């Protein structure tokens, strides 16, 4: 295998399609796409994109759920030398429009079935999937280098606008090729990852498929709402490698009958994105005595940079460590703040179109760039890092990272709102609970339905507050700043008064 300087994500697909054209690449229910077909479709769509004027570095927005069509479009974008921008079609229309505009996408591809999700394309030409495939093209394709951007993942931004994390072929490839080696991914593997394409977890299944010739088995959307369907999916699809946030695994353990089955095929379970509570992890491992289980850690800006194999033993009375650095990563701890700094091959190029925020995000030490993760860590036994909390107001809910400031910015756009503060606390049963405290114009108090509907027009569902509490005055500190600590205590205290059963 060529080293990082020879890594091109679509090059992996091309090579595997040459050596194993008939092996299954994507499995989506009854639809199986071989490597040969995936390669042919991707190249044909790539030349159609080139015919439409797409050139190197242009952004192609994929307004598609994680389907075979989306994976073909993703590789087509890379073969065209362009950069894909995954956009979940469930996002509010306004957020889709803002992301298309921000990324200055040249083309946006959306599903052919169902209602169009793109209302305002911000200058992008909108193609339905069937239109995109029908375009003939015979253009030669652009040549990429490993340092070129491959995709842009939009994550929550504290000022109210999502930030685009630009990731190069080399950066994504560093994680994928390490994971392939470390976990011995092979052609017989069937990999499943329920995360959407816009979530960095999806680099694992999509690109290990391309690199190692394993099958990428897409998780049907219907599984997401009924945990027992997920358990059955794992069994019936004979999944061998799984990668998700802990929340999904916990749902299967709690409500999906997971522990009453044995999974003879499942040999690898990876999880990332949030803290896995020790007792639940112990239950998972008891149900999978022969599987390798590992906690992977890293923000979108760096992908995975540390890992810890929990199936080799961990203390179930506390969350597992985030572990030791991956070999491609440079990880160090800021001695005064305890902040984890992460650099190395998997580091992002920067934030799309935001040079100041990009330079603020990095620390340069001894000539090397490190991303300031904002995560506070401690050095534990045997060189394993232990996550201690955040240095700012970013939170995690079900693996999604959320800037509370972005929720506040959404509220502030409602003309009835004078002041707003969002806080989060941990509830033992419900996980992370977000409460928005609002002060409205007199006589303009919002009902919870009104507040949620307003935010749902601006924010993805996972960012919506669970509760909205009206206040006549915000608690303030001595310098007139909102006292978030007092509000968080109040939000946590309200649980005791039984709003939820």
């Amino acid at each position, binding site marked *: 295998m060529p080293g990082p300087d020879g890594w091109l994500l679509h090059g992996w697909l091309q090579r595997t399609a040459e050596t194993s054209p008939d092996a299954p690449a994507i499995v989506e*229910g*009854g639809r199986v796409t071989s490597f040969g077909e995936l390669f042919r479709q991707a190249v044909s769509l790539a030349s159609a994109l080139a015919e439409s004027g797409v050139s190197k570095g242009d952004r192609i927005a994929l307004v598609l759920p994680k389907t075979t069509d989306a994976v073909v479009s993703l590789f087509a974008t890379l073969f065209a030398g362009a950069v894909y921008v995954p956009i979940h079609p*469930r996002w509010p229309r306004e957020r889709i429009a803002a992301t298309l505009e921000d990324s200055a996408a040249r083309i946006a591809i959306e599903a052919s079935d169902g209602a169009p999700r793109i209302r305002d394309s911000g200058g992008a030409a909108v193609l339905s999937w069937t239109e995109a495939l029908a375009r003939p093209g015979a253009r030669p394709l652009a040549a990429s280098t490993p340092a070129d951007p491959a995709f842009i993942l939009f994550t929550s931004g504290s000022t109210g606008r999502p930030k685009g994390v630009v990731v190069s072929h080399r950066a994504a490839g560093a994680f994928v090729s390490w994971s392939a080696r470390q976990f011995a991914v092979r052609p017989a593997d069937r990999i499943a990852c329920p995360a959407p394409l816009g979530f960095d977890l999806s680099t694992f299944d999509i690109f290990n498929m391309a690199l190692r010739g394993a099958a990428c088995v897409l998780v*049907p*959307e*219907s*599984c*997401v*709402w*009924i*945990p*027992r*369907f997920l358990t*059955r*999916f794992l069994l*019936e699809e004979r999944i061998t490698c799984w990668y998700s946030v802990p*929340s999904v695994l916990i*749902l299967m353990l709690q*409500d999906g009958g997971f522990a009453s089955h044995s999974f003879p095929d499942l040999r690898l379970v990876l999880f990332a994105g949030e803290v896995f509570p020790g007792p639940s992890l112990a239950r998972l491992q008891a149900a999978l005595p022969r599987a390798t289980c590992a906690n992977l850690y890293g923000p979108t800006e760096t992908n995975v940079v540390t890992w810890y194999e929990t199936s080799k033993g961990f203390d179930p009375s506390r969350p597992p460590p985030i572990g030791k650095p991956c070999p491609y990563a440079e990880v160090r701890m800021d001695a005064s703040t305890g902040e984890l700094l992460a650099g190395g091959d998997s580091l992002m190029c920067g934030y799309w179109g935001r040079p100041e925020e990009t330079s603020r995000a990095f620390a340069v030490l001894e000539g090397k760039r490190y991303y300031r993760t904002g995560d506070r860590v401690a050095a534990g036994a045997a060189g394993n890092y232990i996550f201690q909390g955040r240095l700012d107001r970013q939170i995690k809910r*079900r693996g999604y990272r959320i800037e509370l400031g972005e929720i506040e910015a959404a509220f502030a756009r409602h003309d009835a709102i004078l002041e707003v503060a969002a806080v989060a606390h941990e509830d033992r049963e419900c*996980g992370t609970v977000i409460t928005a405290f609002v002060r409205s114009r007199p006589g303009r108090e919002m*009902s*919870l*339905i*009104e507040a*949620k*509907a307003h*935010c*749902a027009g601006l*924010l993805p*569902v*996972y960012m*919506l507050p*669970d*509760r909205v509490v009206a206040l006549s005055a915000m608690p303030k500190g001595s310098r007139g700043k909102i006292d978030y600590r007092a509000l968080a205590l109040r939000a946590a205290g309200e649980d005791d008064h039984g*709003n*939820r*059963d």
Partner: protein
Amino acid sequence: MEIGTEVRRYIAGNFLAGGQDLALEDSTPLVTGGIVDSIGMIGLVGFIEDRFGIEFLPREVDLHNLDTIERIERLVLDKLSSGASAGRPDRIDRNA
């Protein structure tokens, strides 16, 4: 059995901090309107199955069928009248 009323009461109690169910209409969008998130849907679907003694099939569980109280009511009535009650083995429908 008042299916819509029971579902409304569950949603009000779990997602609207109780008491605010008056503004929740049969056609109010639940998921796309931001009232119930995806994890909340898991609880709601579980409640409906337990309360009405039905078991959903994968192809029935989608946003179209579950986004409003009236659609949920129609789905539950369909399932009850077709006799698809609990105990029927569910399987992954490949054509879903």
